[in-house]
């Protein structure tokens, strides 16, 4: 067990003219996560701290925050692994602040929605008794991108998002590639028009920080580069839209 000092960012845009840090000392076991520490503080020291969390197991993506300057999930970050006696918690960068550690995901989700994150295929209307057949290698093309939990860590780490508010961000662009390359999706041209914009996929600097911080092992930077390659016509032949096969005997 060790004692650590947790510095919590405090700011309420409705009342405060400037932000401040409140400091709390807590005892941490080897298994104590930053979220455990914050919830202990909230329960026993200051119940007014605002933070968002839900599943506590890196599935919901709610507890993303800047922990010692790096975007991480608080539930997935152990106090011990930070190897520091002082832990500073801030709201995610590149997001507007609602209060304290709670960030506003409105613009983030709007950008995600603008990528049409669903299968578009007219033949789906007549799917009764039929199904798409996908080969394992066709699934492999998009599988890792479907692990995204929309936690916003990649968006917080992205240097382009920091300067260009119209840039969709790594999460949205990776999801665009995920649906574009899915053989069940038939809206290739419609999708490409969305990202082939002056603030679209071409503005990525390929810093790679998005892929570094992803808690689910997704590689958004790879998705963005594959999307660019697709726009340049380099891997267009890799996608063949699947046909519906009847499974009725």
């Amino acid at each position: 067990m060790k004692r650590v000092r947790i510095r919590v960012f405090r700011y309420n845009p409705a009342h405060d003219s400037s932000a401040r840090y409140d400091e709390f000392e807590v005892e941490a076991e080897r298994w104590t996560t930053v979220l455990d520490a914050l919830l202990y503080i909230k329960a026993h020291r200051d119940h007014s701290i605002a933070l968002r969390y839900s599943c506590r197991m890196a599935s919901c993506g709610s507890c993303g925050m800047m922990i010692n300057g790096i975007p991480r999930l608080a539930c997935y970050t152990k106090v011990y692994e930070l190897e520091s006696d002082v832990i500073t918690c801030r709201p995610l960068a590149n997001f507007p602040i609602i209060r304290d550690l709670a960030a506003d995901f409105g613009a983030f989700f709007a950008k995600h929605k603008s990528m049409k994150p669903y299968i578009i295929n007219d033949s789906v209307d007549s799917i009764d008794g039929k199904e798409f057949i996908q080969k394992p290698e066709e699934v492999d093309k998009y599988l890792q991108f479907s692990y995204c939990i929309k936690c916003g860590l990649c968006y917080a780490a992205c240097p382009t998002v920091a300067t260009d508010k119209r840039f969709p961000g790594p999460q949205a662009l990776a999801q665009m590639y995920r649906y574009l390359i899915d053989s069940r999706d038939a809206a290739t041209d419609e999708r490409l028009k969305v990202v082939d914009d002056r603030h679209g996929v071409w503005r990525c600097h390929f810093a790679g920080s998005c892929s570094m911080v992803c808690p689910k092992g997704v590689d958004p930077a790879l998705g963005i580069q594959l999307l660019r390659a697709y726009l340049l016509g380099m891997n267009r032949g890799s996608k063949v839209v699947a046909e519906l096969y009847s499974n009725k005997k």
Partner: protein
Amino acid sequence: MVRESSIMKIHYYTGIAAIVLVAIHIMFRLTVPDGYSASLEYENVIANYKNVSYALVLELILVTVAVHGFNGLRVILLELRQGDAWESAVKWLCVGGAVAVIAYGTRTIILAGMM
């Protein structure tokens, strides 16, 4: 309206072409019989402009570097600020800048060739 992918294809192609052409240009400086310094003497420089093939290489360097450079500047300025008025101004500033540089450089190449 030109698609961004088309603009970026031009950006990549002009970048690669500029590297090749500038390499040719530097090789010509390094491989002349009298050495590098002699190649930069006034008469030799003017003689380069009178050689139509070499003048064409210089013109291509001018065009590729101007197009690539001003598009790079456009990208930087688009990331600096956003807004329809700003973005329109940046676009026309960069198109105008590239055209002006190419026109002035072409004029220089032609005048030097006629000396």
